[in-house]
Every structure is written in structure tokens, then in C-alpha cells.
């Protein structure tokens, strides 16, 4: 597994944990412990995403990643290493 894949895996894991807490909090808005966990994962995800985008190109468009060529560059999410062979 490449460094890029390893980082994307961690981003996916943090984002998944964050999302699970997010939808749990929709129906349990008073759960302080879940809200704390949500804040914790939110910080971890933001840091990892910033590092990833600085190395491998944008996941979202933001002031740090407003490079048109980087945004349109392959691969798109439905493509993988098999592409273009």
C-alpha cells in the first residue's frame, strides 16, 4: 500500500467515525459524550485532510486547493490504477 493509499484510508476511517457520530447525534442531540467524540474526530480529520491535499491534490475546493488543473486531474473517484491501461 502506497503512502497516499495509507493516508486516504485514515481519512476514510476518521470521516466514517465522524459521520456515524453525526447521524447518531441527529436522534440523540443531548449526548455530550458523543458530541465530544465528534469534535475530536473532526479535528483529526481536518489535520489529515490538509496534509493529504497538500501532497496529493484537492478533495474539496477551498482557498488552499483552488488550482483548476489539480481539481480536474485524474483519477476521479470511480477510477483506479487499472485506468488508462
Amino acid at each position: 500500500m502506497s503512502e497516499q493509499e495509507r493516508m486516504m484510508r485514515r481519512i476514510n476511517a476518521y470521516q466514517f467515525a465522524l459521520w456515524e457520530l453525526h447521524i447518531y447525534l441527529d436522534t440523540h442531540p443531548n449526548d455530550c459524550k458523543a458530541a465530544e467524540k465528534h469534535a475530536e474526530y473532526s479535528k483529526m480529520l481536518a489535520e489529515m485532510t490538509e496534509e493529504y491535499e497538500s501532497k496529493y491534490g484537492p478533495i474539496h475546493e477551498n482557498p488552499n486547493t483552488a488550482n483548476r488543473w489539480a481539481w480536474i486531474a485524474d483519477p476521479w473517484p470511480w477510477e483506479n490504477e487499472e485506468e488508462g491501461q
Partner: protein
Amino acid sequence: MWTYEKKLQYPVNIKNPNPALAKLIIAQYGGPDGELGASIRYLSQRYTMPYPELKAILTDIGTEELAHLEMIGTIVYQLTRNLTPEQIKQAGFDAYFVNHTTGIYPADASGMPFTAAALQVKGDSISDIHEDLAAEQKARTTYDNILRFADDPDVRDPIKFLRAREVVHYQRFGEGLRIITDNMDSKNFYAFNPQFDPKK
């Protein structure tokens, strides 16, 4: 509004084409219990939903379903790359191919185009949330059925992820049903429709 993230919710990396399997999995792209229908159902039901927790859960799960639609589109796309005419014919993919080549078209496993006739927006909290609970179970059954025919671990892994999400969504909607009934007349939940009738 929505913003796009240039990534999948869960990775899909399929090495070997399998058009016969793609023909089955497309059911979750444009079929009656598929991700497109799920997303449109929840995102449409939320407008008249009276309770904040329910507005949130319908918006968020409706949004997650779009990420699942993208995963299913990716699975079908990766299963139908680099096909030869022989493979297309042998797999029974020729009927789909004549209409769409290898483009990803929202249809069910038999080729029936996506239709909103398979979903409902009833404008009544209890009716709508029960439809949503049923929809998650029907999608779970479809994924179970797909897993009966899928041997490739590259395909099984993301399908199992999507199956597990149906179970989690069912749980969240179940909590939603509790929140709805807690807000209603406990002696008769059907005394009035909180989305239409004046509050008692």
C-alpha cells in the same frame, strides 16, 4: 445546497471485469430499492416533516445515499471496463449494451428504467418513517441477494459495507419513529397528522 468531495465513502478497486454481475448490481443504482430511490425518497419527505431531529436525519441519510449511489456506479463501471464482444454476449450483457454501451444508466436488474413510482412521499410522519424503515430492509435484502452471486472479494467488500449501512440507517429511523410518537397523542397516535392538521 451540497458540495462534492472528490473521493468515495468507501474504496472500490475491482481488477476483473464481470458484466454478468454488473447486470445484477445495477439494481442498486436505479432499481426499486436502490440508492437513487432512497436518496430522492428521504430528501423529498423532509420538507413537511415537523420535528427537527427528523428533518436532520432525513437530510443526512438522504445525502449519504448519494455517496452510496456513487459507490454502486463505480462498482458497475469497474465491472464493465475493457470488455470484448464475446464477453458481452456470453455474460448476457448484450441487451444492456445495445441501449447504453457501457454507460451507467439508472435501471433495475431487468433493465426497467428508474421510476419514482417505487417510492412514496405521503406527507404524514408515521407513514413516511415506516416507508423508510421498510426501504432500508428491502435494500438490505437486495444486498444479501447480490452477495449470493458475488464471489470476487473486490466486489463483496464494498457491497458488505453498503449492506451494513442499511442496518445502521434502519436503527436511526427507528429512533426517529420513537421521537415522532413521543411528540404525539399517546392515547391515539393517529388522532391528527402533525404535518397538516392544526396542532391540538
